[in-house]
Protein backbone atom coordinates (compact mmCIF):
# COMPACT_ATOMS: atom_id res chain seq x y z
CA UNK A 1 0.00 0.00 0.00
CA UNK A 2 1.15 3.55 -0.65
CA UNK A 3 0.32 5.92 2.16
CA UNK A 4 0.76 9.70 2.44
CA UNK A 5 0.49 11.74 5.62
CA UNK A 6 -0.20 15.46 5.39
CA UNK A 7 1.44 17.42 8.20
CA UNK A 8 1.97 21.02 9.22
CA UNK A 9 4.58 22.74 11.32
CA UNK A 10 2.97 24.98 13.95
CA UNK A 11 4.20 27.23 16.76
CA UNK A 12 5.07 25.01 19.69
CA UNK A 13 2.17 24.95 22.14
CA UNK A 14 3.96 23.94 25.31
CA UNK A 15 6.31 26.90 25.02
CA UNK A 16 3.51 29.39 24.58
CA UNK A 17 3.64 32.22 27.10
CA UNK A 18 0.91 34.54 28.20
CA UNK A 19 1.27 38.30 28.28
CA UNK A 20 0.63 39.29 31.90
CA UNK A 21 -0.90 42.63 30.96
CA UNK A 22 -3.22 41.72 28.12
CA UNK A 23 -3.77 38.04 28.84
CA UNK A 24 -2.92 37.15 25.26
CA UNK A 25 -0.50 34.63 23.84
CA UNK A 26 3.03 35.80 23.22
CA UNK A 27 4.00 34.53 19.80
CA UNK A 28 7.60 35.62 19.71
CA UNK A 29 10.17 33.27 21.16
CA UNK A 30 7.94 30.35 20.24
CA UNK A 31 9.60 27.28 18.86
CA UNK A 32 8.01 25.36 16.04
CA UNK A 33 6.96 21.72 16.14
CA UNK A 34 4.95 19.14 14.26
CA UNK A 35 1.26 19.98 14.80
CA UNK A 36 0.35 17.91 17.90
CA UNK A 37 -2.87 16.67 16.25
CA UNK A 38 -0.85 15.38 13.27
CA UNK A 39 0.97 12.94 15.56
CA UNK A 40 -2.19 10.81 15.59
CA UNK A 41 -2.27 10.73 11.79
CA UNK A 42 1.41 9.75 11.66
CA UNK A 43 0.90 7.04 14.30
CA UNK A 44 -2.10 5.60 12.47
CA UNK A 45 -0.13 5.50 9.21
CA UNK A 46 2.75 3.71 10.91
CA UNK A 47 0.31 1.19 12.44
CA UNK A 48 -1.20 0.54 9.01
CA UNK A 49 2.31 -0.06 7.67
CA UNK A 50 3.05 -2.53 10.46
CA UNK A 51 -0.06 -4.53 9.56
CA UNK A 52 0.25 -4.44 5.78
CA UNK A 53 3.26 -5.77 3.94
CA UNK A 54 5.02 -3.66 1.36
CA UNK A 55 3.67 -0.39 2.64
CA UNK A 56 5.52 2.85 2.20
CA UNK A 57 4.67 6.11 3.95
CA UNK A 58 5.48 9.54 2.50
CA UNK A 59 5.12 12.61 4.72
CA UNK A 60 4.08 15.72 2.80
CA UNK A 61 4.12 19.25 4.15
CA UNK A 62 3.89 22.75 2.76
CA UNK A 63 5.87 25.37 4.60
CA UNK A 64 9.08 27.33 4.91
CA UNK A 65 12.42 25.46 4.62
CA UNK A 66 12.49 25.03 8.42
CA UNK A 67 9.34 22.87 8.19
CA UNK A 68 11.61 20.01 7.09
CA UNK A 69 12.15 19.38 10.79
CA UNK A 70 8.43 18.60 11.25
CA UNK A 71 8.70 16.04 8.45
CA UNK A 72 11.73 14.54 10.16
CA UNK A 73 9.75 14.22 13.41
CA UNK A 74 7.29 12.05 11.48
CA UNK A 75 10.07 10.02 9.87
CA UNK A 76 11.55 9.43 13.34
CA UNK A 77 8.22 7.86 14.31
CA UNK A 78 8.43 5.38 11.44
CA UNK A 79 7.48 7.06 8.17
CA UNK A 80 9.75 6.22 5.25
CA UNK A 81 10.35 9.51 3.52
CA UNK A 82 9.19 13.05 3.15
CA UNK A 83 8.62 15.83 0.66
CA UNK A 84 8.58 19.51 1.55
CA UNK A 85 6.62 21.87 -0.66
CA UNK A 86 8.42 25.13 -0.26
CA UNK A 87 8.42 28.16 -2.47
CA UNK A 88 8.07 31.89 -1.92
CA UNK A 89 4.91 31.85 -4.05
CA UNK A 90 3.26 29.42 -1.59
CA UNK A 91 3.28 31.92 1.26
CA UNK A 92 0.07 33.52 2.45
CA UNK A 93 -2.02 30.59 1.22
CA UNK A 94 -5.50 30.10 2.65
CA UNK A 95 -6.96 26.60 3.05
CA UNK A 96 -8.09 26.43 -0.57
CA UNK A 97 -4.69 27.38 -1.99
CA UNK A 98 -2.90 25.13 0.51
CA UNK A 99 -5.08 22.21 -0.57
CA UNK A 100 -4.45 23.05 -4.20
CA UNK A 101 -0.70 22.98 -3.65
CA UNK A 102 -0.84 19.70 -1.71
CA UNK A 103 -3.13 18.03 -4.25
CA UNK A 104 -0.96 19.18 -7.16
CA UNK A 105 2.06 17.63 -5.47
CA UNK A 106 0.14 14.40 -4.80
CA UNK A 107 -0.82 14.22 -8.47
CA UNK A 108 2.90 14.44 -9.31
CA UNK A 109 4.35 12.06 -6.74
CA UNK A 110 1.33 9.84 -6.07
CA UNK A 111 -0.95 8.06 -6.43
CA UNK A 112 -1.57 6.98 -2.85
CA UNK A 113 -4.08 4.41 -1.66
CA UNK A 114 -4.60 6.14 1.62
CA UNK A 115 -3.92 9.71 2.75
CA UNK A 116 -3.92 10.59 6.44
CA UNK A 117 -4.38 14.02 7.99
CA UNK A 118 -4.86 15.35 11.52
CA UNK A 119 -8.22 16.78 12.58
CA UNK A 120 -6.91 20.36 12.34
CA UNK A 121 -3.77 22.35 13.05
CA UNK A 122 -3.51 23.96 16.46
CA UNK A 123 -2.68 27.37 14.98
CA UNK A 124 -5.20 28.01 12.19
CA UNK A 125 -7.73 25.53 13.59
CA UNK A 126 -9.75 25.24 10.40
CA UNK A 127 -9.70 21.50 9.70
CA UNK A 128 -10.50 22.36 6.08
CA UNK A 129 -7.34 21.35 4.25
CA UNK A 130 -7.89 17.57 4.49
CA UNK A 131 -11.44 17.52 3.04
CA UNK A 132 -10.40 20.11 0.45
CA UNK A 133 -7.46 17.97 -0.74
CA UNK A 134 -9.75 14.94 -1.00
CA UNK A 135 -12.24 16.94 -3.09
CA UNK A 136 -9.54 18.22 -5.41
CA UNK A 137 -8.23 14.69 -5.88
CA UNK A 138 -11.79 13.44 -6.32
CA UNK A 139 -11.52 10.83 -3.58
CA UNK A 140 -13.85 10.21 -0.63
CA UNK A 141 -13.00 11.87 2.67
CA UNK A 142 -13.64 10.33 6.06
CA UNK A 143 -13.36 12.98 8.77
CA UNK A 144 -13.25 12.72 12.58
CA UNK A 145 -12.09 9.11 12.40
CA UNK A 146 -11.64 7.64 15.88
CA UNK A 147 -10.94 4.05 14.89
CA UNK A 148 -9.88 2.11 11.84
CA UNK A 149 -11.64 -1.22 12.01
CA UNK A 150 -10.22 -2.67 8.86
CA UNK A 151 -8.05 -1.58 5.97
CA UNK A 152 -6.72 -3.39 2.93
CA UNK A 153 -5.63 -2.31 -0.51
CA UNK A 154 -9.23 -1.87 -1.71
CA UNK A 155 -11.35 -0.65 1.18
CA UNK A 156 -11.38 0.86 4.65
CA UNK A 157 -13.90 0.58 7.49
CA UNK A 158 -13.78 3.30 10.12
CA UNK A 159 -15.63 4.73 13.09
CA UNK A 160 -16.25 8.48 12.98
CA UNK A 161 -16.71 10.46 16.19
CA UNK A 162 -19.74 12.62 15.45
CA UNK A 163 -22.32 14.45 17.58
CA UNK A 164 -24.04 11.94 19.85
CA UNK A 165 -22.09 8.85 18.92
CA UNK A 166 -19.93 7.03 16.42
CA UNK A 167 -20.83 6.42 12.81
CA UNK A 168 -19.37 3.32 11.21
CA UNK A 169 -18.74 3.72 7.49
CA UNK A 170 -16.91 1.96 4.74
CA UNK A 171 -15.18 3.56 1.78
CA UNK A 172 -13.38 2.35 -1.28
CA UNK A 173 -9.72 3.31 -1.67
CA UNK A 174 -8.13 5.64 -2.50
CA UNK A 175 -9.50 7.74 0.35
CA UNK A 176 -8.42 10.52 2.67
CA UNK A 177 -8.86 9.94 6.39
CA UNK A 178 -8.59 12.69 9.00
CA UNK A 179 -8.21 11.36 12.52
CA UNK A 180 -9.07 12.63 16.00
CA UNK A 181 -6.95 12.37 19.11
CA UNK A 182 -8.86 9.45 20.62
CA UNK A 183 -7.74 7.13 17.79
CA UNK A 184 -4.40 6.12 19.32
CA UNK A 185 -1.48 7.00 21.52
CA UNK A 186 1.40 8.24 19.36
CA UNK A 187 4.70 6.50 19.96
CA UNK A 188 7.81 8.30 21.15
CA UNK A 189 10.48 8.11 18.44
CA UNK A 190 13.22 5.60 19.18
CA UNK A 191 16.87 6.62 19.10
CA UNK A 192 17.23 4.54 15.96
CA UNK A 193 14.29 6.37 14.42
CA UNK A 194 15.79 9.72 15.28
CA UNK A 195 19.11 8.80 13.73
CA UNK A 196 17.36 7.58 10.59
CA UNK A 197 15.35 10.82 10.40
CA UNK A 198 18.51 12.85 10.76
CA UNK A 199 20.14 10.95 7.92
CA UNK A 200 17.09 11.14 5.65
CA UNK A 201 17.18 13.95 3.17
CA UNK A 202 13.88 15.72 2.61
CA UNK A 203 13.62 16.85 -1.00
CA UNK A 204 12.01 20.22 -1.68
CA UNK A 205 9.44 20.77 -4.42
CA UNK A 206 8.69 24.25 -5.75
CA UNK A 207 5.60 25.54 -7.54
CA UNK A 208 7.24 24.65 -10.82
CA UNK A 209 8.07 21.14 -9.58
CA UNK A 210 4.45 20.45 -8.65
CA UNK A 211 3.25 22.01 -11.88
CA UNK A 212 1.36 24.83 -10.21
CA UNK A 213 0.94 28.26 -11.74
CA UNK A 214 1.85 31.05 -9.29
CA UNK A 215 -1.64 32.51 -9.82
CA UNK A 216 -3.10 29.42 -8.12
CA UNK A 217 -0.70 29.34 -5.18
CA UNK A 218 -0.13 31.32 -2.02
CA UNK A 219 -1.86 34.60 -1.35
CA UNK A 220 -2.43 35.24 -5.05
CA UNK A 221 -4.33 31.98 -5.43
CA UNK A 222 -6.37 32.38 -2.23
CA UNK A 223 -10.05 33.29 -2.49
CA UNK A 224 -10.07 34.63 1.08
CA UNK A 225 -8.25 37.66 2.47
CA UNK A 226 -7.43 38.34 6.10
CA UNK A 227 -8.26 42.03 6.41
CA UNK A 228 -7.65 42.50 10.13
CA UNK A 229 -6.04 40.64 13.01
CA UNK A 230 -6.62 41.65 16.58
CA UNK A 231 -5.88 40.32 20.05
CA UNK A 232 -8.91 40.23 22.29
CA UNK A 233 -8.16 40.80 25.93
CA UNK A 234 -9.04 37.75 27.94
CA UNK A 235 -8.77 39.37 31.34
CA UNK A 236 -12.08 39.55 33.22
CA UNK A 237 -11.14 41.25 36.51
CA UNK A 238 -13.37 38.90 38.48
CA UNK A 239 -14.10 38.75 42.19
CA UNK A 240 -11.57 36.57 43.98
CA UNK A 241 -12.37 35.31 47.48
CA UNK A 242 -10.19 33.60 50.06
CA UNK A 243 -11.06 29.94 50.51
CA UNK A 244 -9.42 29.54 53.90
CA UNK A 245 -12.89 29.99 55.27
CA UNK A 246 -14.55 27.55 52.87
CA UNK A 247 -18.11 28.01 54.20
CA UNK A 248 -17.96 31.72 53.64
CA UNK A 249 -16.29 31.41 50.25
CA UNK A 250 -18.92 28.94 49.06
CA UNK A 251 -21.74 31.14 50.36
CA UNK A 252 -20.31 34.02 48.35
CA UNK A 253 -20.13 31.79 45.28
CA UNK A 254 -23.71 30.59 45.69
CA UNK A 255 -24.82 34.21 46.04
CA UNK A 256 -22.88 35.08 42.86
CA UNK A 257 -24.58 32.24 40.98
CA UNK A 258 -27.98 33.36 42.30
CA UNK A 259 -27.34 36.95 41.22
CA UNK A 260 -26.56 35.69 37.74
CA UNK A 261 -29.74 33.54 37.81
CA UNK A 262 -27.63 30.42 37.37
CA UNK A 263 -29.10 28.50 40.29
Amino acid at each position, binding site marked *: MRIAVLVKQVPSTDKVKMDEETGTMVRSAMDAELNPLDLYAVEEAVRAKEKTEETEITVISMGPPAAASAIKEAIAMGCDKGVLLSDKVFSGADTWATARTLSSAIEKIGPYDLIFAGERATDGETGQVGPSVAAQLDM*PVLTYVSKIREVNGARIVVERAVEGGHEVVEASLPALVSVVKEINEPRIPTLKGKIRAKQTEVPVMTAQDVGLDAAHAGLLGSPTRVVKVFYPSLSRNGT*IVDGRDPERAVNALVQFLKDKA*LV
Partner: protein
Amino acid sequence: MKSTEGTFQSVWTLGEQRDGRISPVSYELLAWGRDLADKRGTTLASVILGYNLKDRVNTLIEHGADIIYVVDNPALEHAYPDAHAAVLEKLVREFLPEIFIASATTYGRTIMPVLAAKLETGLTADCTGLDIDPETGLLIQTRPAIGGNVMATIKTPKHRPQMSTVRPRSRKPLASDASRKGQVIVRECPDDAYASKVKFLEFIKDETTALPIQEAEIVVSGGKGLKDAKNFQMVHELADLLGASVGASRQAVDLGWIPYSHQVGLSGKTVSPHLYVCAGVSGAVQHIAGMSSADIVVAINNDPDAPIFRVCDFGIVGDAIEIIPILIEKLQSQKATSPK
Protein backbone atom coordinates in the same frame (compact mmCIF):
# COMPACT_ATOMS: atom_id res chain seq x y z
CA MET B 1 -16.62 30.58 -9.04
CA LYS B 2 -15.59 34.13 -9.84
CA SER B 3 -18.01 36.90 -8.88
CA THR B 4 -18.14 37.87 -12.54
CA GLU B 5 -19.56 34.47 -13.57
CA GLY B 6 -23.15 35.49 -12.93
CA THR B 7 -25.54 37.48 -10.79
CA PHE B 8 -25.13 36.12 -7.31
CA GLN B 9 -27.83 36.95 -4.82
CA SER B 10 -29.59 35.65 -1.71
CA VAL B 11 -28.22 34.16 1.46
CA TRP B 12 -28.27 30.39 1.97
CA THR B 13 -27.96 28.34 5.10
CA LEU B 14 -27.23 24.60 5.14
CA GLY B 15 -29.86 22.76 7.14
CA GLU B 16 -28.95 19.60 9.02
CA GLN B 17 -30.97 16.52 9.75
CA ARG B 18 -30.50 13.13 11.27
CA ASP B 19 -33.00 10.35 10.72
CA GLY B 20 -35.25 12.83 8.93
CA ARG B 21 -35.40 15.17 11.93
CA ILE B 22 -34.14 18.71 11.52
CA SER B 23 -31.28 19.50 13.92
CA PRO B 24 -31.56 22.60 16.13
CA VAL B 25 -28.36 24.08 14.64
CA SER B 26 -30.37 24.61 11.44
CA TYR B 27 -32.50 27.18 13.27
CA GLU B 28 -29.50 28.92 14.84
CA LEU B 29 -28.05 29.38 11.37
CA LEU B 30 -31.27 31.01 10.18
CA ALA B 31 -30.86 33.69 12.87
CA TRP B 32 -27.45 34.52 11.40
CA GLY B 33 -28.76 34.28 7.86
CA ARG B 34 -31.80 36.48 8.53
CA ASP B 35 -29.56 39.36 9.68
CA LEU B 36 -27.32 39.05 6.65
CA ALA B 37 -30.20 38.77 4.18
CA ASP B 38 -31.97 41.80 5.68
CA LYS B 39 -28.77 43.86 5.55
CA ARG B 40 -28.26 42.85 1.93
CA GLY B 41 -31.93 43.38 1.10
CA THR B 42 -32.23 39.86 -0.26
CA THR B 43 -33.97 36.56 0.43
CA LEU B 44 -32.92 33.91 2.91
CA ALA B 45 -33.00 30.32 1.76
CA SER B 46 -32.26 27.14 3.65
CA VAL B 47 -31.02 24.09 1.78
CA ILE B 48 -31.53 20.70 3.31
CA LEU B 49 -30.61 17.26 2.02
CA GLY B 50 -31.82 13.96 3.43
CA TYR B 51 -34.50 11.35 3.17
CA ASN B 52 -38.13 11.47 4.27
CA LEU B 53 -37.96 15.05 5.40
CA LYS B 54 -40.02 16.91 2.78
CA ASP B 55 -42.99 17.19 5.09
CA ARG B 56 -41.01 18.52 8.04
CA VAL B 57 -39.22 21.47 6.53
CA ASN B 58 -41.90 24.08 7.29
CA THR B 59 -40.29 24.71 10.67
CA LEU B 60 -37.39 26.28 8.77
CA ILE B 61 -39.78 28.88 7.37
CA GLU B 62 -41.22 29.44 10.84
CA HIS B 63 -37.68 30.21 12.02
CA GLY B 64 -36.87 32.79 9.38
CA ALA B 65 -36.32 31.22 5.94
CA ASP B 66 -38.08 32.62 2.87
CA ILE B 67 -37.30 29.67 0.61
CA ILE B 68 -36.48 26.04 1.33
CA TYR B 69 -34.65 23.92 -1.18
CA VAL B 70 -35.14 20.26 -0.35
CA VAL B 71 -33.49 17.33 -2.00
CA ASP B 72 -35.19 14.25 -0.60
CA ASN B 73 -33.64 10.99 -1.71
CA PRO B 74 -32.69 7.69 -0.01
CA ALA B 75 -29.11 8.21 -1.25
CA LEU B 76 -28.86 11.31 0.93
CA GLU B 77 -30.10 9.72 4.15
CA HIS B 78 -26.56 9.59 5.51
CA ALA B 79 -24.09 12.46 5.37
CA TYR B 80 -21.92 11.12 2.56
CA PRO B 81 -19.60 14.03 1.79
CA ASP B 82 -19.16 13.26 -1.92
CA ALA B 83 -22.88 12.88 -2.68
CA HIS B 84 -24.01 15.78 -0.48
CA ALA B 85 -21.36 18.10 -1.92
CA ALA B 86 -22.21 17.06 -5.50
CA VAL B 87 -25.90 17.82 -4.97
CA LEU B 88 -25.12 21.14 -3.28
CA GLU B 89 -22.75 22.05 -6.09
CA LYS B 90 -25.54 21.55 -8.64
CA LEU B 91 -27.91 23.73 -6.61
CA VAL B 92 -25.34 26.50 -6.12
CA ARG B 93 -24.47 26.58 -9.81
CA GLU B 94 -28.16 26.76 -10.71
CA PHE B 95 -29.35 29.38 -8.19
CA LEU B 96 -26.11 31.33 -7.57
CA PRO B 97 -26.34 32.32 -3.91
CA GLU B 98 -24.10 35.19 -2.82
CA ILE B 99 -23.50 33.87 0.68
CA PHE B 100 -23.69 30.27 1.91
CA ILE B 101 -23.23 29.45 5.60
CA ALA B 102 -23.26 26.19 7.52
CA SER B 103 -22.84 25.18 11.12
CA ALA B 104 -19.32 24.17 12.21
CA THR B 105 -20.53 20.70 13.18
CA THR B 106 -18.88 17.50 11.93
CA TYR B 107 -21.33 17.70 9.00
CA GLY B 108 -20.69 21.33 8.10
CA ARG B 109 -16.96 21.07 8.63
CA THR B 110 -16.81 18.10 6.27
CA ILE B 111 -19.27 19.05 3.51
CA MET B 112 -18.37 22.74 3.19
CA PRO B 113 -14.62 22.35 2.43
CA VAL B 114 -15.47 19.68 -0.16
CA LEU B 115 -18.08 21.98 -1.71
CA ALA B 116 -15.80 25.04 -1.62
CA ALA B 117 -13.05 23.04 -3.33
CA LYS B 118 -15.46 21.99 -6.09
CA LEU B 119 -16.79 25.52 -6.52
CA GLU B 120 -13.31 27.04 -6.32
CA THR B 121 -14.32 29.58 -3.74
CA GLY B 122 -13.22 30.66 -0.25
CA LEU B 123 -14.43 29.16 3.01
CA THR B 124 -13.85 30.59 6.48
CA ALA B 125 -13.98 28.11 9.33
CA ASP B 126 -15.73 28.34 12.67
CA CYS B 127 -16.77 32.00 12.58
CA THR B 128 -18.04 33.70 15.72
CA GLY B 129 -19.11 36.87 13.93
CA LEU B 130 -20.69 37.58 10.53
CA ASP B 131 -21.66 40.96 9.16
CA ILE B 132 -22.08 42.85 5.91
CA ASP B 133 -19.60 45.56 5.00
CA PRO B 134 -21.83 48.64 4.44
CA GLU B 135 -19.53 50.00 1.74
CA THR B 136 -18.76 46.96 -0.39
CA GLY B 137 -21.63 44.67 0.56
CA LEU B 138 -19.08 41.92 1.21
CA LEU B 139 -19.49 39.36 3.96
CA ILE B 140 -17.25 40.18 6.95
CA GLN B 141 -16.24 36.97 8.69
CA THR B 142 -14.66 37.05 12.13
CA ARG B 143 -13.07 33.96 13.59
CA PRO B 144 -10.79 33.05 16.45
CA ALA B 145 -7.48 31.29 15.85
CA ILE B 146 -5.02 29.79 18.29
CA GLY B 147 -7.91 29.14 20.61
CA GLY B 148 -9.27 32.66 20.59
CA ASN B 149 -5.98 34.35 21.41
CA VAL B 150 -6.04 35.90 18.00
CA MET B 151 -9.12 37.09 16.14
CA ALA B 152 -9.05 37.50 12.38
CA THR B 153 -11.47 39.31 10.10
CA ILE B 154 -11.69 37.66 6.70
CA LYS B 155 -13.34 38.57 3.40
CA THR B 156 -13.86 36.74 0.13
CA PRO B 157 -13.65 39.64 -2.33
CA LYS B 158 -13.80 38.06 -5.78
CA HIS B 159 -15.16 34.53 -5.40
CA ARG B 160 -18.73 33.38 -4.92
CA PRO B 161 -20.50 32.21 -2.98
CA GLN B 162 -18.82 33.65 0.11
CA MET B 163 -18.84 30.62 2.38
CA SER B 164 -18.40 30.21 6.14
CA THR B 165 -19.03 27.72 8.88
CA VAL B 166 -20.37 29.23 12.09
CA ARG B 167 -19.62 28.00 15.57
CA PRO B 168 -22.65 26.12 16.92
CA ARG B 169 -24.49 27.69 19.86
CA SER B 170 -22.97 31.09 19.20
CA ARG B 171 -26.47 32.40 18.52
CA LYS B 172 -30.03 31.68 19.71
CA PRO B 173 -32.62 30.74 17.08
CA LEU B 174 -35.30 33.33 16.28
CA ALA B 175 -38.67 32.77 17.93
CA SER B 176 -40.80 30.44 15.87
CA ASP B 177 -43.58 32.23 13.99
CA ALA B 178 -46.20 29.87 12.58
CA SER B 179 -47.71 32.66 10.46
CA ARG B 180 -44.55 33.16 8.38
CA LYS B 181 -44.98 32.26 4.74
CA GLY B 182 -42.36 30.83 2.47
CA GLN B 183 -41.78 28.69 -0.55
CA VAL B 184 -40.68 25.05 -0.50
CA ILE B 185 -38.84 23.94 -3.63
CA VAL B 186 -38.30 20.19 -3.91
CA ARG B 187 -35.53 19.26 -6.33
CA GLU B 188 -34.33 16.07 -7.86
CA CYS B 189 -30.82 15.60 -9.19
CA PRO B 190 -29.41 13.41 -11.93
CA ASP B 191 -28.47 9.98 -10.56
CA ASP B 192 -24.73 10.56 -10.83
CA ALA B 193 -24.93 13.32 -8.20
CA TYR B 194 -26.16 10.79 -5.64
CA ALA B 195 -23.32 8.33 -6.21
CA SER B 196 -21.03 7.88 -3.21
CA LYS B 197 -17.88 5.91 -2.54
CA VAL B 198 -18.87 5.80 1.13
CA LYS B 199 -21.32 3.33 2.65
CA PHE B 200 -23.02 3.68 6.01
CA LEU B 201 -22.82 0.56 8.18
CA GLU B 202 -24.15 1.46 11.62
CA PHE B 203 -24.50 4.18 14.23
CA ILE B 204 -23.27 3.52 17.76
CA LYS B 205 -25.06 5.91 20.07
CA ASP B 206 -23.13 7.35 23.01
CA GLU B 207 -24.28 5.73 26.22
CA THR B 208 -24.12 8.95 28.14
CA THR B 209 -27.13 11.21 27.90
CA ALA B 210 -25.06 14.28 28.76
CA LEU B 211 -24.54 16.75 25.95
CA PRO B 212 -21.11 16.83 24.33
CA ILE B 213 -19.14 19.62 26.00
CA GLN B 214 -19.09 21.77 22.86
CA GLU B 215 -22.89 21.95 22.96
CA ALA B 216 -23.44 22.28 26.70
CA GLU B 217 -24.91 25.39 28.36
CA ILE B 218 -22.94 24.63 31.50
CA VAL B 219 -19.58 22.86 31.72
CA VAL B 220 -17.89 21.77 34.94
CA SER B 221 -14.22 20.92 34.44
CA GLY B 222 -11.67 19.29 36.68
CA GLY B 223 -7.89 19.35 36.57
CA LYS B 224 -4.77 18.03 38.18
CA GLY B 225 -5.55 19.86 41.43
CA LEU B 226 -8.12 17.17 42.22
CA LYS B 227 -5.16 14.82 42.81
CA ASP B 228 -6.77 11.50 41.87
CA ALA B 229 -9.48 9.78 39.86
CA LYS B 230 -11.63 9.28 42.94
CA ASN B 231 -11.74 12.98 43.71
CA PHE B 232 -12.52 13.63 40.07
CA GLN B 233 -15.93 12.03 40.74
CA MET B 234 -16.84 15.26 42.56
CA VAL B 235 -16.78 17.00 39.21
CA HIS B 236 -19.37 14.56 37.86
CA GLU B 237 -21.48 15.03 40.95
CA LEU B 238 -21.38 18.82 40.71
CA ALA B 239 -22.10 18.63 36.97
CA ASP B 240 -25.15 16.41 37.57
CA LEU B 241 -26.45 18.88 40.10
CA LEU B 242 -26.07 21.81 37.71
CA GLY B 243 -27.28 19.90 34.66
CA ALA B 244 -23.83 20.39 33.19
CA SER B 245 -21.50 18.41 30.97
CA VAL B 246 -18.09 17.40 32.33
CA GLY B 247 -14.88 18.87 30.97
CA ALA B 248 -11.26 18.33 31.92
CA SER B 249 -7.80 19.75 31.57
CA ARG B 250 -5.25 17.92 29.45
CA GLN B 251 -3.48 16.65 32.56
CA ALA B 252 -6.66 15.03 33.87
CA VAL B 253 -7.12 13.30 30.51
CA ASP B 254 -3.47 12.24 30.32
CA LEU B 255 -3.77 10.78 33.84
CA GLY B 256 -6.65 8.67 32.55
CA TRP B 257 -9.28 10.15 34.85
CA ILE B 258 -11.64 10.87 31.95
CA PRO B 259 -11.69 10.18 28.17
CA TYR B 260 -10.26 12.59 25.63
CA SER B 261 -13.68 13.65 24.33
CA HIS B 262 -13.97 15.74 27.53
CA GLN B 263 -10.68 17.61 27.09
CA VAL B 264 -11.01 21.38 26.90
CA GLY B 265 -8.23 23.35 25.25
CA LEU B 266 -5.98 23.86 22.30
CA SER B 267 -5.49 20.17 21.57
CA GLY B 268 -8.98 19.29 22.82
CA LYS B 269 -12.39 20.86 22.37
CA THR B 270 -13.33 24.52 22.33
CA VAL B 271 -16.34 25.19 24.53
CA SER B 272 -18.48 28.30 24.76
CA PRO B 273 -21.05 27.61 27.48
CA HIS B 274 -23.05 30.14 29.44
CA LEU B 275 -21.33 29.02 32.65
CA TYR B 276 -17.91 27.39 32.93
CA VAL B 277 -16.86 26.09 36.35
CA CYS B 278 -13.37 24.71 36.78
CA ALA B 279 -11.91 23.02 39.81
CA GLY B 280 -8.22 22.35 40.27
CA VAL B 281 -7.44 23.73 36.83
CA SER B 282 -4.52 26.15 36.88
CA GLY B 283 -5.41 27.61 33.52
CA ALA B 284 -2.47 26.95 31.25
CA VAL B 285 -2.77 29.08 28.15
CA GLN B 286 -3.71 25.96 26.17
CA HIS B 287 -6.68 25.38 28.48
CA ILE B 288 -7.79 29.00 28.48
CA ALA B 289 -7.71 28.88 24.69
CA GLY B 290 -10.52 26.34 24.82
CA MET B 291 -12.87 28.12 27.22
CA SER B 292 -12.23 31.85 27.05
CA SER B 293 -15.45 32.51 25.15
CA ALA B 294 -17.63 31.21 28.01
CA ASP B 295 -20.05 33.88 29.26
CA ILE B 296 -19.32 33.37 32.96
CA VAL B 297 -16.28 31.64 34.41
CA VAL B 298 -15.97 30.35 37.99
CA ALA B 299 -12.61 29.01 39.16
CA ILE B 300 -11.53 27.14 42.27
CA ASN B 301 -7.81 26.63 42.70
CA ASN B 302 -5.38 26.65 45.61
CA ASP B 303 -2.70 28.70 43.88
CA PRO B 304 -3.53 32.42 44.10
CA ASP B 305 -1.18 33.08 41.17
CA ALA B 306 -2.84 30.54 38.88
CA PRO B 307 -3.58 32.16 35.50
CA ILE B 308 -7.17 30.90 35.61
CA PHE B 309 -7.96 33.66 38.13
CA ARG B 310 -7.21 36.31 35.53
CA VAL B 311 -9.87 35.00 33.23
CA CYS B 312 -12.58 34.21 35.78
CA ASP B 313 -15.58 36.22 36.91
CA PHE B 314 -15.63 34.58 40.32
CA GLY B 315 -12.72 32.76 41.91
CA ILE B 316 -12.10 30.94 45.16
CA VAL B 317 -8.49 30.56 46.25
CA GLY B 318 -8.73 27.26 48.05
CA ASP B 319 -8.45 23.51 47.81
CA ALA B 320 -11.04 22.26 45.31
CA ILE B 321 -11.20 18.92 47.14
CA GLU B 322 -12.41 20.76 50.20
CA ILE B 323 -14.55 23.40 48.48
CA ILE B 324 -16.51 21.27 45.99
CA PRO B 325 -18.27 19.02 48.55
CA ILE B 326 -19.40 22.11 50.46
CA LEU B 327 -20.63 23.67 47.24
CA ILE B 328 -22.51 20.47 46.34
CA GLU B 329 -24.11 20.38 49.77
CA LYS B 330 -25.18 24.03 49.62
CA LEU B 331 -26.58 23.68 46.11
CA GLN B 332 -28.50 20.58 47.17
CA SER B 333 -30.11 22.30 50.13
CA GLN B 334 -30.77 25.29 47.92
CA LYS B 335 -32.55 23.03 45.46
CA ALA B 336 -34.57 21.36 48.22
CA THR B 337 -35.85 24.68 49.55
CA SER B 338 -36.25 26.43 46.22
CA PRO B 339 -39.89 26.93 45.16
CA LYS B 340 -39.30 25.31 41.76
